């Protein structure tokens, strides 16, 4: 007898089984590959976190917050790298001049760092939003959209409708909705971007 003899189709089953096994409220990141790390981390964090959570009386159901935390975890590394690179490109002279004029650290941050970072902040924001909108692999692997439908986000729902229910037409219609949604967000964010940052003869 092997493990593959068993397969629990419903996510409810899986969620309750996970609970029985002491798997709890988790959040963990990945730099490299969302799914790859998530599986392993899920495995091993579960025992510890489940114990700790139960000990301090936390609710140990998986819920919406968990996949949000996962998303943050996997995206934070990229955001740090991109923002750091952009910050390093800001000339030191600006800070020196500001310091001579008596500007405080906070004021320097608001008047120099943030404006210079704007294009990169837009890019990072775009990246994060897309990551969140398309969150699929972690949900597929960890919660299966459950418990119930608590972690069934749009992209997971589309996948289920299309390739589980095999209603391709419905899936395509939903795909149009998610595409329209993301276009609205993208266009809105792009307006914050200085015009010459992407294209234009004075590229950088």
């Amino acid at each position: 007898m092997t493990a593959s003899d068993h397969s629990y189709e419903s996510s409810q089953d899986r969620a309750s089984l996970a609970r029985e096994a002491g798997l709890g409220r988790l959040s963990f990141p990945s730099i490299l590959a969302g799914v790859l790390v998530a599986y392993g981390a899920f495995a091993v964090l579960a025992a510890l976190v489940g114990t700790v959570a139960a000990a301090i009386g936390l609710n140990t159901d998986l819920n919406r917050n968990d996949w949000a935390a996962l998303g943050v975890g996997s995206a934070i590394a990229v955001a740090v790298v991109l923002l750091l690179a952009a910050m390093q490109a800001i000339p030191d002279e600006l800070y020196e001049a500001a310091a001579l004029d008596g500007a405080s650290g906070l004021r320097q941050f608001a008047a120099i760092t943030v404006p210079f970072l704007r294009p990169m902040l837009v890019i990072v924001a775009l990246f994060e939003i897309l990551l969140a909108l398309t969150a699929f692999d972690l949900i597929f692997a960890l919660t299966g959209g459950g418990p119930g439908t608590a972690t069934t986000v749009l992209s997971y729902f589309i996948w289920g409708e299309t390739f589980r229910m095999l209603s391709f037409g419905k899936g395509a219609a939903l795909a149009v909705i998610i595409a329209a949604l993301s276009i609205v967000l993208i266009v809105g964010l792009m307006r914050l971007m200085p015009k010459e940052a992407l294209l234009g003869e004075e590229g950088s």
Partner: protein
Amino acid sequence: MRGGKSARFVYPAAAAVLIFALAPFGWVLLSGFLPAVAILDQPPQWLRYGLIDDNFRYIFTGKVPQAYEVGGQLRKMISQEVRAVPRAAFNSAIIAFGVLLLNWLFGAPAAYAYARLRFPGKAATFYLITASRLIPAVALAVPYFLIVQQLGLLDNHLALILVHTVLTLPFSILILTLYFRTIPQEIEEAAQLDGAPRGTVLRRIVLPLALPSLVGTGLFAFMMSYSEFLFALLVTSSAHARTLPVTLASIVQNPDVTWSLLSAGTTLAILPALILVWPIWRYMVRGLVSGGVT
């Protein structure tokens, strides 16, 4: 950066981020060397049974770990799907390298055209290309699946190489275009005065100068392909072409998964990418950002 009293805040914050980012890797690495029972202990006593390499041995040779051999009929079930991991790593590597090469082959000339040439519709097509990747992947899942099906490429490495190239190419073109623009035009003009055609200028002058960016974008495409899940799930159906993320997903889908074996498989999955990327990570980050979107 400024030293002194800010260090008191910087180091704890950096340590927190570091732990947040690295702890799962540590856990995965450690638990791959533990028997399953050590992981499921309540409370956890990870090192009580010592470190073992049975999990890795099972993946490669099929020798069932000692902990499972006791108990006869009642012994715990074992996740035998994990034995597909080496084959999946091979598939993933082939596909990711294919994606990397196609990105160089198509990305560099396209980016050069956008960086240097003037042609009608330049701005419009550039925005179209870069924005195309901003559409959520799941919105493209149905059409791509149908296209791959029509081409008869289901469960084929080539299908995934093509799909992943489409997904990564816009980003490569964007980064390479920004980088090419930072190369002083005078160098190219000098070569052109000597009668070198555009193709030669690109191959002999621009590409060597843009090496950091090429490495950066190439590896980025590699990693995207290596860890891409949705399309890999859709277009592969058997172990023949199944990639690592899909294989690991098929293991974890089972509620009776053997966690230690899963961790061992995950370790094996992460290692190649880590070994490939780690030495040139600095180089890669520089190549990706020095195009300077600032």
